[in-house]
């Protein structure tokens, strides 16, 4: 018994020693940043509630810049950072009134849905000088045609991540997700909008179809697929694909980049038949009580250096042209993050908010698909 306790004590001491050492994250180069405008909140004890997707910011791990920490140091504003896994989860939390965020990062269709339901505040762009860094291509998009309530954070497309060891020829498209050969080795999106989009593309429908017949047809297609699906997942894709638990999964290009960096056996296919192009945008909810600080935070995210740190950390495509210029060639030309303009304009479709009726129908169909036998 004494021996055990001895061992345990040693372990405890070791771990507490470990605490002193800690690993260093990189420090942000602030020389290029106009620190003047960031000092206006210093010492006022302002707090900012930021909600972002999981693993969607450079958080100081693996020797990268800790963006939140840098912002706090620069401004003296305390950031309460929480994460969510899907647009719908964010929406649910906001609708329930259980949330008082100052900053959120919904995707395109959710941006317009939130705005239509009166939940987003207008952004005062005069307080965000760095907005000039955003490429014109990503301004005035369908979900915010007059550029009033959103600032693009990252964009990307949806494609197929696959296991190169088991699937040697990357000559497939979405139909592989219905291929019985891969039964039980397929993963599928666990959110209605992305899942329906794949079925709609296969059926030759618009990804923004809102008529009952189209939605029901897509739902039937998804129902037909269900027996082949191993699991409906979101970020679990990382674990399952990395460990070769599954062979094919539709997912976001940015995450594919991150996954492929660490796993040589994974590849990515952009289906020729077309796909969804999404833009995740930073917004300020109407319930925000610190809108000035929120504007400052958005401006900080648009600093080219901050953008670079985030881009390397999350692997998604940046809409910030100054950030893009600073990226290395490997990232710029990886064949996934920045596709040629021809494909992007002719074969991708962005989501827009569905009319309320269609939205409700999709939710119901999705629940019935997921709960069906």
């Amino acid at each position, binding site marked *: *018994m004494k021996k*055990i*306790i001895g061992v*345990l*004590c040693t*372990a*405890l001491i*070791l*771990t507490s020693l*470990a*605490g002193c*050492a*800690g*690993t260093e*994250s990189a420090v942000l180069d602030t020389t290029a940043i106009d620190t003047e405008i960031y000092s206006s909140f210093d010492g006022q004890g302002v*707090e900012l*509630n930021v*909600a972002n997707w*999981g*693993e969607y910011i450079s*958080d*100081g*791990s693996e020797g990268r810049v*800790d963006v*939140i*920490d840098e912002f706090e140091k620069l401004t003296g504003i305390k950031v*309460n*950072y*929480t*994460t969510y*896994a899907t647009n719908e989860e964010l929406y649910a*939390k906001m609708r*329930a*009134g*259980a*949330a*008082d*965020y100052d900053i959120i990062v919904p995707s395109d269709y959710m941006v317009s849905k939130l705005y239509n339901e009166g939940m987003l505040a207008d952004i005062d762009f005069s307080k965000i000088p760095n907005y000039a860094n955003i490429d014109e291509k990503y301004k005035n998009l369908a979900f915010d045609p007059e550029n009033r309530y959103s600032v693009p954070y990252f964009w990307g497309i949806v494609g197929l991540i696959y296991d190169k060891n088991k699937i040697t020829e990357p000559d497939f498209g979405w139909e592989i997700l219905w291929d019985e050969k891969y039964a039980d080795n397929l993963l599928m999106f666990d959110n209605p909008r992305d899942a329906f989009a794949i079925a709609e593309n296969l059926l030759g429908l618009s990804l923004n179809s809102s008529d009952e017949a189209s939605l029901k047809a897509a739902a039937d297609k998804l129902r037909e697929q269900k027996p082949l699906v191993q699991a409906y997942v*979101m*970020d*679990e894709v*990382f*674990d399952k694909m*990395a*460990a070769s638990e599954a062979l094919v999964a539709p997912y976001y290009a940015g995450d594919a980049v991150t996954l492929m960096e*660490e796993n040589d056996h994974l590849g990515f296919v952009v289906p020729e038949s077309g796909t969804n192009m999404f833009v995740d945008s930073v917004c300020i909810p109407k319930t925000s009580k610190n809108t000035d600080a929120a504007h400052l935070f958005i401006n900080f995210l648009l600093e080219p250096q901050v953008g670079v740190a985030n881009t390397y950390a999350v692997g998604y495509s940046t809409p910030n042209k100054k950030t893009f210029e600073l990226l290395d060639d490997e990232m710029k030309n990886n064949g996934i993050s920045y596709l040629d303009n021809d494909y992007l304009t002719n074969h991708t479709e962005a989501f827009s908010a569905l009319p309320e009726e269609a939205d409700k129908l999709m939710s119901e169909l999705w629940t019935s698909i997921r709960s069906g036998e």
Partner: protein
Amino acid sequence: MKKVLKYAYLALMTVFLYAPIFVLIVFSFNSTKSHTVMSGFTLKWYFELFSDRIIMSSLVTTVIVAVSASLISTVLGTFAAYGINSMRKLPKTLALNTNNIPIINPEIVTGVSLMLLFVFFAARMHFKMGYITLIIAHITFDTPYVVLNIMPKFRQMDKNLVDAAEDLGCNGMQAFFKVVLPDIFPGVISGFLMAFTFSLDDFIVSYFVSGTSVQTLPITIYSMTRKQVSPKINALSTIIFIVVLTVLITKNVIENKRVKKVQMAVREEIKI
């Protein structure tokens, strides 16, 4: 033969209970993030753990919430049990049944119902969901366990004790603190420990009532299980596990010593 079977069964169950724990601990030393393939030994996750702001701040939140909720519910529950015990049959049954609601209610229903309540009041009374709502929710599901742990102690207690104390000049308060409390104290302690454990581990209720500015450790872990659980969490759990193990072993050793002392004393007496 019977003994062999008995120990084989105990061993088998222990293996079953500890297999996942073993996996978690072993992979806290893995040099890659994999949870299935061991590729090398490292202590780096233990180093990185302490500089991870999200994990650290949620650990602090969890401890604050668990300590305050379990303390408050222990006080609340002790007095409640005292009162309920002296009730007449009908109100007593009613009170105990109400007490059982949070226990038999699915956690998800408790979480959802409290969320609905808090949202309703948050909008009208301008308060933020966060520490306060978390602590209130935890007290709500903790206290019933405290009450249930203490009730049997009251039943075992000799009712004449309190009367005797009062006859001897104690007022109600004094009688409670000098006579009743010492008698039920083991129940109070086990109630507190149970409440603390439940608070520490609670995910579902916290998930619904935590609001936006605070996040408990289980919520952080949940958001990680959706992606890839960082080995940092394995490292943290290993540390917690070792701390708990040490505390419990020490407690056990002390108790055993005390038992032995009592046995010795009894033996001495018999000799005399």
